């Protein structure tokens, strides 16, 4: 018997292995790469015809979306609320004749089982009274009101009125009530109304951040801090649950359970809420859900087939608590939606998904409804796919990709993010794709070791494309355009850039525009400063010295290193003078430290003329953007504001990829970067840059009481404790910015990660006082020599 059992088990095991092996083969095919999907979600956009500027309290049931819109009436100065019902199937919108009085506003809405709206309202009541009157009122009314007054608390305004001959004080109080009302969705009539102010006790700043209902129609209200109130449908308080930490989210599942999202010992946690014990339970294992908790903008809805429907910054997915499985429905990008615009989402009874979109682009915010229908691949015009590979995706590029996808009828761009838990594994994945020929068509160069990939021929030269399309190199800020040039070939384009630099007083720097380490060390010694930076540590000073200067210690041509030379040892010894840990308790502001010559440098960016104006205001005298020490004395570095775009040499759709890249070089795009306010970067095209400068130099005026035009500040900037109003820039200021821009030649990715690791490891021992500078330098020399040998 035993033997037979054994046999059976062996066979089962063997069988399991074969099955799982087979399964693996099938599983492999499921990988998204290159595999054609069976179906696609096809979006359909509808404009919402409403007058309201802002929509809140959106709830949906049976393909009806109920939403409460507010519109600001300029003439009366009152905000008017309207309740809408939108029919998803028939694309019709109707107003439900429900009106709140002027002092009421809708906080949140829910739907009950009967299909009526449960609204949590806030109502202000102005109480104008003499002290006495309050007393009278208080004694007359029930004690509920007294309670409410306590709750209302601070809305007391003392007002002095002159009435006749008498002068008496009258106080105006805002009594602040919270009500739960039931509104019929059919005709907007209020069917029920309960004052629930008392539920929240003394919680004076109460605002219902999250609301949810469970299977028994109890209502859970969280203030977003650490308190959750539970009431039943009749407004009776059932429980008040206090937590140790802030609530980051509260939602109900399809099963009617309530869950809380909050921070715990292991990061974000999901914990169930149990009404019977009036407690929240222990964190449940919800890996499928938490895995994506790094995506921001998460919203949870009750699912139709699974527990939850979740919308986040990337896409829409369903999640089931019992299986702990998350299923991706679609990426917002795939349905041409910018995830920033999504304000609510849901599923219709026929399986389609909808999203309420808020388009911030124009002056007038507009609302759209997008309906996503699952369509078999055979019925969809499948466009050719262009893959955009990147470590991270900025909103700027997202917007451009959506625009491209909407306009191009032949291609659509999909984003492939090499973003995992750590940087190295993302890079490893990218390398793998390169080696196996799955290279993305368009590549975001920022955060990549450009030189290494370029030397392997990963990128396509863009000059021939520019030439063919008549794009003149001279029309662009040349030193920035050529930042990613290598032996006469252009491999990447930075549509928008800023300059990374370090600022020093010109009186200290003299007539230098840059410096070598030697010069810098001399200046630092002579000027008698306390520190190089405000909170400069040994490491930060050390890295400032070598960051842009590795070429001085490594000769790639001959494969020699000079880390054990005197220069490097000097740097080490210099850096060691500074504190190991900066003293952050020192609160003297940077501006005063600079004025008193306690601090030599301010590491900064130059991303707009306004920023320059602020800097020069803060220094109070002429400044030099001297940047990082460098053997050639060229210390300023070019940084892309968002991304730097390249085309893969192995791509089969280079022309299409170029169409996308070209868009960033167009007048339309470049002029769009010109902005009244600082835009975190300069446009690449000279004409656009000039427009920007012109705008910076154009003063703005206001009319004073005498009708005279007086120049008004365009904006104001602050740094630490320093505040400055920015007026129109002078020509000299703009010229100074021009000079800074022109001085930069390289991008800021000069230190290789491997080298940085070696240097940090070894210098750490030196800065801890374990070894002498010479010993440290010798070891660094020894280890880096291997690296250099390997790569020469």
């Amino acid at each position, binding site marked *: 018997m035993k033997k037979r059992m054994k046999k059976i088990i062996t066979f089962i*095991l*063997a069988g399991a*292995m074969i099955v799982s092996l087979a399964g*693996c*083969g099938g*599983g*492999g*095919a499921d*990988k998204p790469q290159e595999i054609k999907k069976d179906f696609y979600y096809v979006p359909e956009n509808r404009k919402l015809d409403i007058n309201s500027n802002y929509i809140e309290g959106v709830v949906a049931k049976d393909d009806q979306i109920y939403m409460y819109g507010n519109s600001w009436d300029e003439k009366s100065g009152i905000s008017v609320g309207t309740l809408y019902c939108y029919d998803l199937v028939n694309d019709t919108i109707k107003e439900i004749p429900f009106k709140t009085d002027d002092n009421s506003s809708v906080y949140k809405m829910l739907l009950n089982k009967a299909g009526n709206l449960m609204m949590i309202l806030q109502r202000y009541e102005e109480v104008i009274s003499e002290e006495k009157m309050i007393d009278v009122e208080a004694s007359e009314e029930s004690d509920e009101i007294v309670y409410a007054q306590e709750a209302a608390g601070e809305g007391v305004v003392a007002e002095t009125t002159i009435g006749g001959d008498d002068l008496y004080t009258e106080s105006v109080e805002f009594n602040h009530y919270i009500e739960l009302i039931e509104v019929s969705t059919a005709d907007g009539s209020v069917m029920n109304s309960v004052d629930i102010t008392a539920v929240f006790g003394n919680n004076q700043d109460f605002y219902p951040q999250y609301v949810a209902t469970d299977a028994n129609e109890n209502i859970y209200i969280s203030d977003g801090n650490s308190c959750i109130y539970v009431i039943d449908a009749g407004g009776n308080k059932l429980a008040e649950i206090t937590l140790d930490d802030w609530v980051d989210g509260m939602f109900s599942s399809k099963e009617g359970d309530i869950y809380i999202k909050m921070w715990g*010992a*292991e990061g974000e946690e999901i914990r169930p809420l149990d009404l019977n014990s009036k407690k929240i339970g222990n964190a449940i294992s919800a890996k499928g859900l938490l895995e994506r908790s790094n995506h921001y903008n998460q919203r949870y809805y009750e699912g139709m087939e699974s527990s939850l429907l979740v919308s986040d910054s990337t896409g829409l997915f369903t999640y089931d608590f019992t299986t702990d499985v998350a299923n991706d429905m679609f990426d917002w990008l795939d349905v041409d939606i910018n995830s920033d615009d999504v304000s609510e989402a849901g599923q219709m009874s026929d399986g389609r998904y909808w999203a309420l979109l808020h388009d911030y682009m124009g002056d007038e915010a507009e609302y759209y409804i997008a309906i996503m229908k699952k369509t078999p691949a055979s019925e969809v015009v499948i466009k050719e796919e262009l893959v955009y590979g990147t470590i991270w995706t900025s909103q700027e590029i997202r917007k451009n990709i959506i625009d491209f996808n909407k306009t191009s009828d032949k291609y659509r761009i999909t984003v492939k993010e090499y973003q*995992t*838990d*750590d940087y190295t*594994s*993302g890079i*490893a*994945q990218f390398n*793998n794709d390169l080696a*196996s020929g799955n290279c993305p068509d368009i590549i975001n160069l920022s955060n990549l070791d450009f030189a290494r990939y370029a030397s392997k021929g990963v990128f396509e030269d863009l000059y021939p494309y520019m030439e063919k399309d008549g794009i003149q190199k001279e029309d662009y800020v040349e030193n920035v355009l050529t930042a990613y040039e290598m032996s006469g070939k252009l491999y990447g384009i930075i549509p928008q850039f800023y300059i990374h630099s370090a600022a020093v007083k010109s009186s200290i720097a003299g007539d230098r525009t840059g410096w070598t380490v030697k010069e810098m060390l001399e200046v630092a010694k002579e000027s008698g400063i306390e520190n190089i930076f405000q909170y400069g540590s040994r490491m930060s000073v050390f890295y400032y010295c070598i960051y842009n200067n590795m070429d001085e210690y490594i000769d790639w041509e001959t494969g020699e290193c000079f880390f054990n030379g005197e220069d490097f040892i000097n740097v080490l010894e210099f850096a060691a003078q500074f504190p190991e840990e900066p003293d952050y308790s020192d609160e003297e502001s940077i501006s005063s430290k600079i004025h008193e010559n306690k601090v030599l440098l301010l590491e900064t960016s130059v991303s707009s003329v306004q920023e320059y104006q602020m800097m020069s205001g803060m220094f109070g005298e002429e400044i030099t953007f001297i940047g990082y020490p460098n053997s050639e004395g060229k210390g300023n570095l070019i940084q892309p504001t968002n991304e730097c775009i390249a085309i893969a040499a192995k791509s089969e759709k280079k022309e299409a990829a170029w169409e996308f890249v070209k868009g960033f070089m167009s007048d339309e795009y470049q002029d769009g970067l010109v902005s009244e306010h600082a835009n975190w970067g300069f446009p690449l095209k000279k004409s656009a840059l000039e427009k920007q400068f012109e705008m910076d130099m154009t003063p703005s005026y206001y009319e004073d009481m005498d009708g005279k035009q007086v120049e008004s500040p365009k904006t104001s900037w602050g740094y630490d404790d320093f505040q400055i109003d920015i007026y129109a820039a002078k020509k000299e200021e703009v010229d100074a910015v021009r000079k800074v821009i022109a001085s930069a030649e390289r991008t800021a990715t000069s230190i290789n990660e491997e080298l940085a690791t070696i240097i940090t*490891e070894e210098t*750490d021992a030196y800065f*801890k006082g*374990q070894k002498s500078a010479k010993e440290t330098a010798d070891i660094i020399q020894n280890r880096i020599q291997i690296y250099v040998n390997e790569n020469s």
Partner: protein
Amino acid sequence: MKTDTAIYIKRTKKKRRRQFVKVLIATMIAAIFATLFLMPIILTITNSFMSASEISANYGQVFATTDTGGKTFIAERVNLKFIPDMVSFSQYITVLLKSPDYLFKFWNSVILVVPIVAFQIFVAAGASYGFTRCQGRIKEMIFFIYIILMLMPYQVTLVPNYLVSDWLHILDTRWAIWLPGIFSPFAVFLLTKYMRRIPTAMIEAAQIDGAGEWQIFKSICMPLCKSAITSIAILIFIDYWNMVEQPLILMSDVEMHPLSVFLSKINEGEVGLAFAVATIYMVPPLLIFLYGEDYLVEGITYQGGIKG
């Protein structure tokens, strides 16, 4: 005659004394070696009973990153202690109860190693039988290739491994570790060597009795190889329990990494817990060793020659 015996007795006495001195010296040398051999293991275990603060005070010099949380005292020198100042189970409490991450990684190790051990033996049993029966020139050649593959350093097979995993779309899944592990020639080599010692006469006798190959394999070979299989399983287990390079290269998802990889990176993080985690990780192989030492020794003994 009398003197002769006296001399003989004297001689043997002298010999015995010399023998005794010899044994004493040998024992002492062995004892010294044994202490040196055991020290790192014992130190790891004793250090696991230190509190995190004691560790960072003692070894702060060694590990670049000290635990965060304000200024901690770091001794000028590294203090290695056999016995902690205060026996504390705080490391274990944290590892076992407070941060399930470590247990999770431990579980990863188990998931990765156990199937490899089981199925490598499974595949190898068949293969060794194949190599043992009906030997010929071609099989000898193949066996030679197996030996070469077995002896190659991992880095030589790194790119092939990686590329195949990529082709099969198993990169970043556990299969990328499992499959090459299951088909590793190591167990085939050892088991073949053992099986070839089974007297051919036994098999031929069975053949004459009308037994099929499958029956011979199942009823004669396998029962005879029981102890060999146990010892080989132990050897495979140690080898894969110790793996570091494969997961680092073949699985980019840190969540799936075994504890060995995690441990190798631990001095970048929570050094205070490292010793407890290291000790926990040592427990399974040490337990197996204690229970299966004789098998293991036997297994090593079969390896006594490269050629079959």
